[in-house]
């Protein structure tokens, strides 16, 4: 790749003088053609480069425990920074001066994994064509630990000898020695004097790559008509981390899948094609104009992998029908292929009384009919006898959802100053999928569940909105607005039958002087549900579900900003806002569950404040500053579900999650030598922190304290913190045109030098960012982690890095 890039770049640069000469000769005889463009190329030099491995060192045990070292994955998350020469941009624009043909072509970051090419050619006012090809990577890790063979395929394997050994250490109630043996084995070490078998652990990359081709055509040949066609074809490949829970028992068939978890590199290989085709007509009415368009939209998703199988590392002879019970093979269903087809009709019509109607009618058909996969992967057989899986009620889902939308806007200019906007919207998601019922079904590969049939229920819902806003704009100085809105949301099988939300809003803009503008808005609404349909006494786990998206709430939203130019050289733009949601006490649930407060989210409060500042210190030196602070507080109440009064206050525990975000940005531009040399510097710091303060229940039961034993420490969640910083210092030198001419070139040549320092610092392994490879007592500070000895992870996530990069580049614009 490097050779290719070097050859491409070198070849391009070498032919510049020759091409320039040719261009001049050609232009001497060419009539009616023009061209201009830009070429930027250069090279990066890493002064400090984070390693590909997990952290300080790529050998155990450092990647087992939370790391303080660096890894390059986060730095290259959305594209691997070129390590040497690069062709950043090639843009050529050309065509005929009479407008009969114009074209633009862009090539960005040629040869990288985030390269992009675009071609646009058209006859303005007639035909517009566009083509594009783009790559977008998403890199999660370059250092994930895996014992699996066949990574990237749909069959992940584990060395049989390893599985045999690990199974020998499994038991319903593992001894500490067994856990230690597993820990030593998995981690390829001999920390506990255990078996010490070196596991075949390898580094793998977790990354997906999207390759997208796009094409578009627009036709405006007829003055009253417009035709559009857009198509995209995106192929996604790679691997992603995916967790699988499993069961294990030497005595009980059909064990609950909670013995442990195995994280695997799941294969990704799918394709999404989206296509739109529309025709639009523009005409006139006695009161103005109208237009009407019809658009077909299609989307086709094809997953090449319907499922994948992976060996259970902890079991080689586990079976659903004989001890030890459990899955020896995980068969995981990947997302099914599906498609959507739909028609959208849009129209705008000028009506009498200075009214414009804008309407949309849309009908979309979502379909999915991939064959069900065979879940009899662990010795189960289909049949009607005891211990057999009942045959599936259908070979596939025949999933069918139809969505109907109508949106209607009446915009009336009552007077030049008063306008009114009335909106009426109705959306109906009609789930017509057959309600299949499964009996004697496989429960996560572990065995046959006969407890109760499972029926697939419809997820239909409707959403009706109506709102009206009245705006008064007496002049350019003042704008006032106020409105009312209402929403009714009904669900076929939700926890509640329907929710109704209504509220009002007001806003204004005030611009009394050219140097002062302020905008502000305020909104308040109340949502109330109708008929909580889940029986509170049926299943405590279900009855206690209090989804925040359907429960009663009072919401206040407000925001405002001021744009003020204090002096000729100083502009300040402070801004702020809140979104305050309170979930009031639910009387119905309280009465049933004997609790003084409802469970679930009680408060969800967010607010932010910030300011932008632009300061021109001298005519040659300009600076900007930006700061934004945001806080989000979420308060939950939960409860363990045991005992006769499961939701009694003494069994409750609470948690307040506080997220704080600071983002600071500053930049300076100095025209050091006007017209010759510019220096630009910028710095950004993004500090984020999530604190989770949990208070256990008064009853001090293990189920509501987070403890396994009363001797365990209280629930303490370490803050999750992330600090991102970047410093850029750039110099732009504009080569004297006479020098450029002497070189035989034409155009503007800019030389660029850049220094970048970038750092990401993240802490808290407890939540997401530092998944340990295999949790063990030693890794948890001596605390005996439940089931830690039966689990295996990829230890893939280390977002820490520091990088220093020097970039030298040249840009030619002609």
């Amino acid at each position, binding site marked *: 790749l490097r050779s290719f890039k070097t050859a491409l770049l070198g070849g391009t640069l070498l032919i510049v003088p020759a091409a320039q000469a040719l261009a001049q000769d050609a232009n001497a005889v060419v009539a009616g053609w023009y061209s201009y463009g830009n070429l930027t190329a250069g090279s990066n030099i890493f002064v400090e480069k984070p390693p590909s491995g997990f952290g300080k060192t790529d050998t155990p045990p450092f990647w087992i425990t939370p790391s303080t070292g660096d890894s390059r994955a986060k730095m290259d998350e959305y594209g691997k920074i070129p390590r040497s020469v690069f062709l950043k941009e090639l843009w050529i624009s050309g065509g005929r001066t009479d407008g009969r043909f114009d074209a633009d072509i862009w090539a960005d970051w040629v040869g990288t994994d985030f390269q992009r090419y675009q071609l646009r050619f058209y006859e303005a006012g007639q035909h517009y064509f566009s083509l594009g090809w783009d790559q977008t990577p998403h890199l999660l890790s370059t250092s994930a630990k895996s014992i699996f063979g066949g990574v990237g395929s749909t069959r992940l394997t584990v060395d049989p000898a390893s599985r045999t050994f690990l199974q020998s250490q499994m038991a319903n109630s593992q001894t500490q020695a067994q856990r230690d043996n597993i820990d030593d084995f998995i981690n390829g070490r001999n920390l506990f004097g255990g078996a010490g078998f070196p596991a075949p652990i390898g580094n793998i990359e977790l990354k997906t790559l999207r390759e997208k081709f796009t094409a578009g055509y627009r036709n405006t040949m007829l003055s009253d008509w417009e035709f559009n066609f857009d198509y995209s074809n995106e192929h996604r490949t790679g691997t992603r981390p995916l967790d699988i829970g499993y069961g294990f028992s030497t005595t009980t068939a059909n064990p609950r899948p*909670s013995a442990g978890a195995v994280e695997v590199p799941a294969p990704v290989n799918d394709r999404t094609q989206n296509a739109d085709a529309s025709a639009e007509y523009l005409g006139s009415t006695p009161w103005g104009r109208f237009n009407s368009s019809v658009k077909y939209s299609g989307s086709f998703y094809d997953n090449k992998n319907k499922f994948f199988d992976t060996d259970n590392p902890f079991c080689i002879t586990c079976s659903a029908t004989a001890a030890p019970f459990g899955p020896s093979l995980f068969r995981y269903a990947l997302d099914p292929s599906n498609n959507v087809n739909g028609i959208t009709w849009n129209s705008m019509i000028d009506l009498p009384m200075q009214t414009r109607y804008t309407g949309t009618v849309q009908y979309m058909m979502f379909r999915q009919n991939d064959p069900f996969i065979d879940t009899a992967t662990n010795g189960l057989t289909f049949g009607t006898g005891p211990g057999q899986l009942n045959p599936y009620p259908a070979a596939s889902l025949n999933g069918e959802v139809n969505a109907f939308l109508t949106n209607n806007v009446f915009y009336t200019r009552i007077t030049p100053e008063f306008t009114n906007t009335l909106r009426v919207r109705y959306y109906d998601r009609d789930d017509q999928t057959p309600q299949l019922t499964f009996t004697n079904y496989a429960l996560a590969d572990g065995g046959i569940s006969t407890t109760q049939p499972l029926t697939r229920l419809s997820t239909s819902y409707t959403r009706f909105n109506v709102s009206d806003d009245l705006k008064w704009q007496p002049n350019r100085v003042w704008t006032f607005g106020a409105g009312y809105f209402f929403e009714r949301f009904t669900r076929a099988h939700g926890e509640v039958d329907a929710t109704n939300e209504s509220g009002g809003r007001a806003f204004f803009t005030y611009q009394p002087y050219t140097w002062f503008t302020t905008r502000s808005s305020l909104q308040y609404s109340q949502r109330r549900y109708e008929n909580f349909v889940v029986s509170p006494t049926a299943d405590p786990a279900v009855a206690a579900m209090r989804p925040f998206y359907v429960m009663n709430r009072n919401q206040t939203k407000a925001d405002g900003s001021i744009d003020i130019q204090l002096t000729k050289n100083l502009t300040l733009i402070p801004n702020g806002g809140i979104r305050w949601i309170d979930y009031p006490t639910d009387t119905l649930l309280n009465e049933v569950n004997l609790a003084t407060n409802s469970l679930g989210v009680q408060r969800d409060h967010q607010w932010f404040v910030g300011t932008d500042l632009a300061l021109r210190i001298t005519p040659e030196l300009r600076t900007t500053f930006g700061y934004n602070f945001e806080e989000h507080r979420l308060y939950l109440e939960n409860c363990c579900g045991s005992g006769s009064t499961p939701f009694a206050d003494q069994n409750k525990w609470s948690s307040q999650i506080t997220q704080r975000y600071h983002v600071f940005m500053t930049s300076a531009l100095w025209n050091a030598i006007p017209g010759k040399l510019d220096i630009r510097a910028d710095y950004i710091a993004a500090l984020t922190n999530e604190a989770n303060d949990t208070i256990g229940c008064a009853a001090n039961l293990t189920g509501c304290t987070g403890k396994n034993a009363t001797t365990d420490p209280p629930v303490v969640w370490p803050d999750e913190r992330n600090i991102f910083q970047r410093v850029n210092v750039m110099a732009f030198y504009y080569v004297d045109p006479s020098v450029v001419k002497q070189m035989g070139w034409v155009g503007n040549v800019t030389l660029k030098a850049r220094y970048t320092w970038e750092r990401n610092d993240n802490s808290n392994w407890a939540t997401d960012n530092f998944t340990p490879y295999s949790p063990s007592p030693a890794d948890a500070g001596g605390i005996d982690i439940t089931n830690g000895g039966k689990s295996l992870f990829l230890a893939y996530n280390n977002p820490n890095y520091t990088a220093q990069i020097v970039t030298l580049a040249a840009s030619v614009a002609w």
Partner: protein
Amino acid sequence: MLRRGTTRGWRAELAATASTLLLLIAGLAGTATAADTGGQDDSLSALHSYVVSLGGGHGHSTGSAPSSDASDPQLADDPELAALRAFAGQIGAGKPAPAAGLTKLAQADNMLDAMREWFQQGGRAPTPASPTRPHGPVAGGTQPGEPPPGATSVGSQVCATCHASQTESYGRTLMGRLGRSGKGSKLECESCHGPGSAHVKAGGGRGLIISFRPDDLSRTAAQNNDLCIGCHTKGHQTMWQGSVHEERGLMCTNCHTVMKNVSRKGQLKTAFQPETCAACHQKQRSEIWRTSHMPLRTPSLGREGKMVCTDCHNPHGSYAESQLKKATVNEVCWTCHADKRGPYLWEHPPVTENCLNCHEPHGSNNDAMLKISRPRLCQQCHSGGSHVSNPRNPGVTLYAQGRECTHCHSAHHGSNNPAGARFMR
């Protein structure tokens, strides 16, 4: 594609065309200067070039009449051009006095100067801008911001005489090219700026012609926008009237720059679209700097910049909440994440209903852009009963580490596996 030239043979044109295409492919095709001077044979272009030369290619040719000894023979021979040149020569030669009663277009342009005026006026507050108060030369118009009555059209050639650099940069835009193609004959300068004769006779200056400058308070946003909407009333702009941005008094020119290309598409004010939106949406601008985010940041060393705001939103209005481009939040997300579209055999209702129940699309501090960390995310709804109600001490239980609930319930977006009713397969 090939058309025989009026003054050159088809072989020459064929050769020239081939050469140009070759150069286009190589990315090194000539120069704009060379092409302009050698490749244009119409009067406007000749005058344009001449004016550019007067101003060094950028400035205004204020008041200087084109000399009669122009080196380009076309300039000397074209009678239309000669008339035009004579007209241009009068510009500035006898600048008319401002109309009686005119005031400055704008008062102090910053607070400090306003305070000075306030003190100088003995403590009388500066009068807020108001259309009821004449605002400079527009006072002579029928409405604020309208050209005065009697103003007539002068044609774009005249405009180009002074506004050479703007004409040049505008000519490179899609609208400029449309004007050149002859398919957009309406796209003269005065199509948007109104009749310019008064402006020309006054020797230029603001007030006698429609201006879109943000500090010109003489016209309302709706008045300015109506000029754009007059043509841009189809497609993505159909729903502008009544949209949030329209309601809040935004002008098209708050986001778009008509006179030159800054962005590759849409003639936006910034090269990278999210920076245009961030001018007002500072909160969202900050959110994309959280560690878990989509590739929305301004490209740095090539990374990021793979998505823009309009991949999901239509700032000109839509038939969905938050000006989304599709009917629901989920339909927007499914454009790229079609694998989550289903319908599944086993649906997870909050997923089916709205991706934003769990995800923060502009950025988050948690894995996969989750709104809060797991297991609390799940416990917002799964708040009691069975094992879901345990607060999960991260120092004690495996299920508080890493991906928590999704260790087992990894198919939480929905499962099509008959064994996946609990989202484990």
